């Protein structure tokens, strides 16, 4: 059976799998024996220590070593309930979002473990449902955005509920029976809460990028036909209807599940990028690739790990007619990467991406801590796929080889998704899209004209063949999907 791994490798070609290359080194970092590696959050302290919050309660800390097996973990804090968000202020102060609250951990006496567990804010409720985990990002002004997940029909509610209970919000596959489930809340530096945006199912990953844009992914399921990636703005509704019951403006007599689909679609803000199931099935923490080329050629782009796949997607965003949209492809897939990719952080020198994994209680067990280090050898791939008035511009990371600019090298399909009360969704209205022209703009850039370029959330899926670099390397990934919300004017 020696040929078996080769066979598997062959089957992966042509899917979204990345070709094996020498650009990123993957290593697995063990925890002390017996410690359940269910990584709810990861971060770095100003002095360069890595901090890992485990969902069973412990917050561990270690100084990274070159040898991934030599981390010496010690306990910074313990006793937290499903900690899934973290912000490190200093070596002595760490904020954690756990099931019931946003908690500030302070190591007052400087002995390396927290003495104070301060309740910063706990404006959301708890129905008692296991699915209601939270993620959190600092707002850069001393406050926080907290993503409050909904409950699952695979679990119950309690007779005695923390916060308010809504009978109407209790209906649905994933539901919002307790206060503010399915929302992003803003908590200012004084602990005051402002409801920010609604319509989320399981936004297990929110992120504030270097330009101040707030982003959130979500998990495909009810009201999410496929995995969306949202540009989050105050006051917007993003499609999962149960959360509406907590909108102070909402008429409590109206069950949002009974609204006509057209009305929901009218109210809803579209995703900037729709990721087909081949790209991601459960978006977790997004992260922007730092400036410079210390982590490869994609500085400024956003990586989106998959909690339900052995992969991390790469997002190419642009603003078209005032609205964010763009393309996605695979950044790293399989090749030893675990499932359950949940939280990510760059090392202080930006050369290494630490990936924490967990999916216990949500799906099959997949857990651990891994790291990807850039080797300095740039991959050959499409750096950016962007929209033109007549099609797409593909900018490569390196010089294109001979003959890349052939119409027959590129195939397009387009499809759309519908968000309904049913779980997930297949691509709808799938059609082949003809490439009508192709031009080589410069040594690294191609422009393609396509038929039927239309706005309104169509996903244009592109595959390619016979494209190689001038030095003979094949393209790292084979599948790109661009979500066209608006056309270029």
């Amino acid at each position, binding site marked *: 059976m020696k040929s078996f791994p080769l066979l598997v490798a062959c089957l992966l070609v042509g899917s979204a799998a990345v070709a094996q290359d020498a650009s990123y080194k993957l290593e697995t970092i063990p925890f*002390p*024996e*017996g*410690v*359940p590696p269910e990584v709810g959050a990861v971060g770095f302290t100003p002095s360069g220590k890595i901090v890992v919050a*485990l969902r*069973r*309660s*412990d917050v*561990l800390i270690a100084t990274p070593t070159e040898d991934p097996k030599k981390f010496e*973990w010690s*306990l910074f804090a*313990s*006793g*937290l*309930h499903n900690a899934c968000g973290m912000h490190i202020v200093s070596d002595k102060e760490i904020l954690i979002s*756990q*099931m*019931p*609250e946003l908690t*500030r951990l302070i190591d007052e006496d400087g002995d390396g473990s*927290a*003495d*104070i*567990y*301060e*309740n910063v804010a*706990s404006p959301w409720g*708890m*129905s*008692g449902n*296991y699915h209601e985990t939270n993620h959190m990002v600092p707002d850069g002004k001393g406050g926080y955005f907290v993503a409050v997940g909904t409950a699952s*029909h*695979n*679990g*119950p*509610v*309690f*007779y*005695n*509920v*923390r*916060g*308010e*209970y809504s*009978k109407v919000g*209790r*209906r*649905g*596959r994933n539901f919002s*029976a*307790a206060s503010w489930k399915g929302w992003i809340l803003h908590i200012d530096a004084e602990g005051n809460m402002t409801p920010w945006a609604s319509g989320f199912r399981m936004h297990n990953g929110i992120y504030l990028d270097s330009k101040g844009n707030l982003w959130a992914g979500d998990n495909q399921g*009810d009201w999410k036909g496929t995995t969306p990636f949202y540009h989050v703005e105050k006051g917007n509704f993003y499609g999962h209807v149960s959360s509406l019951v907590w909108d102070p403006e909402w008429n409590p007599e109206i069950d949002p*599940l009974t609204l006509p689909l057209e009305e929901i679609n009218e109210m809803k803000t579209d995703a900037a990028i729709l990721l087909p199931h081949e790209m991601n099935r459960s978006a977790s923490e997004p992260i922007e690739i730092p400036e410079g080329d210390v982590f490869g050629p994609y500085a400024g782009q956003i990586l989106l790990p998959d909690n339900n796949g052995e992969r991390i997607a790469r997002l190419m965003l642009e603003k078209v007619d005032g609205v964010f949209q763009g393309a996605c492809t695979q950044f790293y897939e399989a090749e030893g990467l675990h499932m359950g990719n949940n939280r990510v952080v760059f090392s202080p020198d930006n050369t290494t991406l630490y990936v924490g994994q967990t999916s*216990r*209680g949500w799906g099959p*067990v997949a857990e651990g801590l891994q790291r990807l280090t850039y080797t300095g050898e740039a991959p050959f791939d499409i750096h950016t796929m962007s929209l033109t008035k007549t099609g797409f511009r593909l900018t490569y990371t390196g010089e294109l080889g001979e003959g890349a600019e052939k119409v027959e090298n590129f195939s397009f399909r387009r499809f759309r998704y519908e968000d309904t*009360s*049913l*779980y997930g969704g297949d691509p709808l209205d799938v059609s082949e899209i003809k490439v009508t022209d192709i031009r080589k703009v410069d040594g690294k850039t191609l422009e393609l004209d396509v038929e039927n370029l239309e706005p309104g959330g169509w996903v244009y899926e592109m595959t390619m063949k016979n494209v190689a670099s001038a030095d003979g390397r094949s393209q790292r990934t084979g599948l790109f999907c661009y979500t066209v919300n608006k056309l270029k004017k």
Partner: protein
Amino acid sequence: MNSRNLLFLLGLLSLVAFPVAGEDRFITLSNLPMGTREKPLVLRTYFPDPGLTREVLSNHDLGYRARKYSPGKGDVDGFVDPILGIPGAIGVNFGPDLSICWDATECRLLYAWRGGFLDMTNYWGEPESGRRKGFGYIPELVGELIFVAKGSHPLGIFDQYTEILAPEFKGYRVIDGVPEFHYTVGEADVRVKIEPGTEPMSIVKHYTVKAPGEVGYYETGYKIKKTDDKDGTFSVTIQGKPVVGMGGAAEEQEYSTEKPNVEWGAALYTNLGCLACHSTDGTRGHGPTFAGLYGEEVPITGMDEKVIADDAYIEESIVNPTAKVVESYPPGYMPPYPIGKKEIKSLTMFIKTLANE
């Protein structure tokens, strides 16, 4: 050996079978985590609810039975009932002598037990497969309940035993391994550290209260010793005792099932989950209280005449709850309990013990 006694033993075994490693005691893959008197274990998680009354959980909202829902069809036949659990509490284990469940919503000690701490398997799942228990994923108490809170908040401030409504949890500070909980209520600022006392089953609460008025303490149903208040600092020692009929090991005491009896009825009241809706202390729950029910006249929805709550009425209400629904309670809330005649009689006898004299 019944399952609860087995868990009790497992709790003791965990001290041997899952020794804590090194200086740092990480929460390990053991689903039976325990601390010691010197290094207590703090764990925030879902907690079992041994049948606490609405008066104790007055700052919680009520969850309700919901119609089963199908994403494709909407509401379908059948119901999904809530389960018993405490959502926002903090547990502390001091080894086999004492475990406490202190709630950050009510800001009070809800219950205490001895023998073990929690069996987390329902929630954390089996170590290898990760399989969590479906709808009943609440961790289980290991050991024997020795204190269960009753009545309103034990602390009274402002010269009266005023009810502590809407306390605000501020967090806790770990002092020599023991958390000192901090909350405010109105203008009062309260810190309380809870530890095992010197007597078996005793619990000591060390208070530091800054309040504009005098501070009083009253614990319903337990003997207490309170030290003098020195500038807002005082201690209260609660003498716990095995709690019968509330999910502790003590409930497993032998009772005969040969013929109907009160003890059997009390066990059924817990085991069948009657306690989730029907209180025994007069507080209003999802269903009418059992306190003072037997022999009284009950107003029924849709009937002009009141009905006397006698054996026949109680038997009918157990087997066919929709036949007579007490006014102001939702119809169809209680499922029928098709239990045997001896069980029904035992429950009725138990309810009778709660009648007004």
